[in-house]
């Protein structure tokens, strides 16, 4: 996947979260697909960001590095790309190339 492709949420209004102050992990429920996922902090961060706005992989890597105070290295990029693929396979998010115009019905 290209680092500049944009990721967006499928039915972000159907994103629901169970979050507790004293827990690192979070639980995500997607009303559209029925998926319930136990997420580590990085997975939860990624889905929350994409749920709020379209974003490229490159930008997501930058935000995650800042948020978790991590260096931008291949391990972080691989981890984020794997999470993106998993979420996409489950139908929670989708990607579209920045260069292609949005299809306009009618």
């Amino acid at each position: 996947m290209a680092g500049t492709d944009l990721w967006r949420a499928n039915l972000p209004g159907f994103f629901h979260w169970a979050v507790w102050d004293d827990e690192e992990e979070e639980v995500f429920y997607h009303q559209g697909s029925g998926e319930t996922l136990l997420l580590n902090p990085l997975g939860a961060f990624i889905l929350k960001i994409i749920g709020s706005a379209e974003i490229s992989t490159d930008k997501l890597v930058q935000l995650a590095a800042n948020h978790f105070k991590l260096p931008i290295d291949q391990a972080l990029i691989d981890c984020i790309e794997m999470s993106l693929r998993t979420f996409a396979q489950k139908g929670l998010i989708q990607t579209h190339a920045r260069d292609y115009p949005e299809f306009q019905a009618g």
Partner: protein
Amino acid sequence: MPAIIPNSRQDEIRRALRGDGYRIKIGPFNVSLRSRLNKVAESMSLFYGDYPQLPADAFVDYHVRVDNPLGLRRWLHPQAIFSFDGFTPFKPLPEAQAFAMFEWGLNWCIATTAHQFLVVHSAVVAKDDRAIILPGDPGSGKSTLCAAMVSQGWRLLSDEMALIDPEAEHITPLPRPIGLKNESIEIIRTYGNNVTLGPSINDTAKGTVAHMRPPPDTLQHATRAAQPDHIVFPRYTTGAATELRPLNKPRTLTRVAEQSFNYHILGEDGFTTLTRLVSNCPAVELSYSHLDSAIAQIDALVS
């Protein structure tokens, strides 16, 4: 010690089963069972003989029937088949399993239709209306532990299903016979007081099964809901020391969701109900091999 059911009561139940149906209230559900089978009549007398009977004009949630299927085979190898509103969801089983089939069939009816509740595959027992939810996969020892706790004075809400009210967040009792399998049957037969077991049924899909009759006072509280207090995931392991390990809330939520029959149907309501349950209810994993010690640990949770 077998419970003594007067012959006149047995005859009454047998006539109802062969007629318009033996109509009783089981927890929040009105059930009508019809059957011509003597084994069903005997077991219904033993296990459901003192359940509240419904007036003739009462609405019935589940019209079910357990009878021999038609055909020549019933004369050679008698079988029983379960039907719900005329629909037969399962293949016939040997007639000896007819009462167990009623129990399994009623579980199926409730799990597939009672969506006013979040239904979780779990035993539930209570002390002072504080409920312990015992979810568990087959073989986890949940029914054995439930039966032992009930024989030690805990109130039985259910051996098989936690009916969680999504609004009130309490658990509605569904007291029914406790299904025991294989080695658990002898363990419970010799454990504690107040234990009445029905006949053992061999060669079922689950091995040998027998049912334990809920203690007589269970029905006196059959309409009194209880508040979830703890979630305990039992895990029976031969020779294991009794050990309680706290579970974090996110993992508890996903584990309980996996044990729910209708979480996926309730959608957002199911998720919200589970989130509240897990937020208000500490969860532990209980490894055990010794019933007294396990019960003492659970006692300590609510004391």
